[in-house]
Structure formats: C-alpha cells, structure tokens
C-alpha cells in the first residue's frame, strides 16, 4: 500500500504521533518507519489527493507539531512512496545526507517575511522623486489621458521604476533581518508582494527577529507593510546550498 511521507527525523525524536492525523478524507493515523537511527513519519496515502484546505492544514500541522519537538526534514506536500519498505530504503540510501541535514537544522526554525507596497504611496513617491516621470504624468493629464501608446510607454517607465524599488526595498529589509538568521532564501514569488523571503532563525533569536520586524514596520509605515510568519518547519532549507538572497 502506498505511503504518504511527511518528514524525516532522528529515530530518537519523541514521535508523539497518536494525536495527529494525516492528509485525506479518512484522516489516517500516522506511523514511524525506522531505519538505522533515522525515522520517517508516514500514513496510508489517500487516493485522489488534491490540495484542499483540510489536507494542507493536516500536512502543515503534522510538520509544525513534530518540528516543535525536535529537528525534522520536511518533505514537499504530496510525496508518496510505493510502500514502507521503499521509505526505509530511502532512509538507508540517504542516511548520511539526512543525518547532516538534521544536525544543521537542529535548533532553528523558518520564518517567512512577505512585503507589500502601498501602491499609491509608492507611485506618488516615485513621481515626486523623478522629474521626468512627473513631467510625463502631467503631460498625459493635460492631454486628457493621451493616446494608448503614450500611456503604455509611460506605464512601462513607471513599471521599471517600481521594479527598482522592489529590489531596493527587499535588500533593505533583508539587510535588517539577516543579522538574526543563519540563512536566507527567496521564497516563491507571490502576486502582490514586492518580497517573499524565508529566514532560518535559531529558536532563541526569534524575539530579536520579531523586534527587528516591528522596527521595520514602523520605519516603512504608510509606504509598505511586512508580514512575518510564525515559526515554520524549515521548508526552504532542506539542501546544503549556501546561496543567500
């Protein structure tokens, strides 16, 4: 029977699985597959899995709960192995890599930070600070909006200026938060956000990180907003690449 795989961890992880339920309408119980000092947390795989809210919450809840009790390597949503034997074989095959990864991740959590500009404030700021853009805007107004090609040409110039701000403001936020992080990574681009970056933060540095986020929010009030996640399993830090934002 296929096994849905949630995460890998040390075999000595407490693995308190009784109160947790897995993905799928049947809300399957969880079990541990152990091999040579490592363990995988799995359940029977549901048929026809889709990313329904219930299943995403189940996956996330399992990982968050286990992550709070010891280091884990989170697997991507929807990972299914042919059976438990195949899971044990993978633990054997990747034993060295997974053990090293668990050591590096121990004591750390992922904190994700998304930033959104307040668009009118951003655009007003760009026009105020750029005489050419301001003049072009005024010329279009005077012309009752101008031709479509004029509006497109002007809008493209504004877009390019906005792109520069995205880069600048992302760098600004990352520079302020990086001192508290072991690593940082770009998270997938999300529509409406000028930045989406995840930080690997030592558990005991979270208060300082939060204080820095609050400081940033105050500094950018009226111009941009930030939203920092609670402590997450280290989704974005499951490889050894050292690339930073």
């Amino acid at each position, binding site marked *: 029977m296929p096994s849905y*795989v949630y995460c*890998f961890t040390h075999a000595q992880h407490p693995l308190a699985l009784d109160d947790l339920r897995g993905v799928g309408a049947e809300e399957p119980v969880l079990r541990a597959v152990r091999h040579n000092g490592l363990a995988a947390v799995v359940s029977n795989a549901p048929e026809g*899995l*889709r*990313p*329904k*809210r219930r299943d*995403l*919450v189940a996956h*996330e*809840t399992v990982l*968050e*709960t286990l992550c709070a009790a010891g280091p884990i390597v*989170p*697997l*991507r*949503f929807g*990972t*299914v192995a042919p059976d438990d034997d195949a899971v044990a074989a*993978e633990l054997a095959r990747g034993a060295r890599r997974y053990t090293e990864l668990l050591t590096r991740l121990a004591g750390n959590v992922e904190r*994700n930070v998304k930033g959104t500009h307040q668009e*009118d404030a951003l*655009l*007003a*700021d760009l*026009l*105020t600070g750029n005489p050419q853009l301001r003049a072009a805007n005024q010329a*279009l*107004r005077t012309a009752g909006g101008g031709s479509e090609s004029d*509006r*497109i040409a002007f*809008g493209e110039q*504004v877009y390019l200026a*906005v792109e520069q701000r995205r880069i600048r*403001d992302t760098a*600004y936020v990352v*520079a*302020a938060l990086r001192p508290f992080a072991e690593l940082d990574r770009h*998270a*997938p*681009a*999300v*529509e*409406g956000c000028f930045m989406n970056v995840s930080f690997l933060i030592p558990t005991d540095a979270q208060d*300082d990180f*939060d*204080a*820095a*986020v*609050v*400081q940033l*929010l105050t*500094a950018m*009030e009226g111009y941009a907003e930030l*939203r*920092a*996640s*609670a402590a*997450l399993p280290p989704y974005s830090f*499951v490889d050894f690449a050292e690339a930073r934002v």
Partner: protein
Amino acid sequence: MTIMAQPPAAGAGGGSAAGALYDVIELILDRGLVIDVFVRVSIVGIELLTIDARVVVASIDTYLRFAERCGRLDLTGGRQPVGLPAIVGQITENSAERKVRGAIAGAGRAIADTIQDIVTPDGRGSN
C-alpha cells in the same frame, strides 16, 4: 511575541497551522524536500499557486494600470519623498506593536483573497 497575519484558529489541532495557512501555502506546495524515487502526486491547480510576479506584472495591462493610477494621484500636497531610514544595525525596542498588528492583518487578507481563488475549499467539488 509572534507576529502573525491572523490569530491562530481555535481548535485547529493545537497549532497555528490553520490560521496562518494562507500565508505559507506556497512554501508547503513548492518547498520541502523532494525525493526523486518517490512519486509526487500530480495535483491539478498546484502550478497556478505560485506566480512569477515579473511575468504577471510586465504586461501591457500593467503598464496601462500604472499610467491610470499615476494620473489619478494627487501630488499637490507638497509631499515629501519617503526615505527609508538607516535602520540596519540600530534595531531598538519600540512600542509600535499594536499599530503593526493592524497593518499585518490588512495585508494578510489581501493575500488570502488571492489564494482563496485558487485553493479549493473543503466541501466544494473540483476535478
């Protein structure tokens, strides 16, 4: 202090998963370890979830929208350019938390609205 988009949903398995789910959905679906020899369930709609912002933004429609938006701005108020202060390296305590929470919640809703269009809620069919 935990900075979150929304308070944790009551009764959500004791964790913050439900309350903050929308905020991290792209991480759950697009990050995490991939094992080559295991199948990743093919899930209709997943590829819609993360959008390359540059592809979306750099379009004629976007240019026209920016132009229109700029045309409607009131720039007569002697507005000062917004300068980002030199915050790096001088993070200090402050008491803006209450105000901050409001701002966070507002942005959270915007994201949630976007994602709600994509993720199928429980109880509604999709194929």
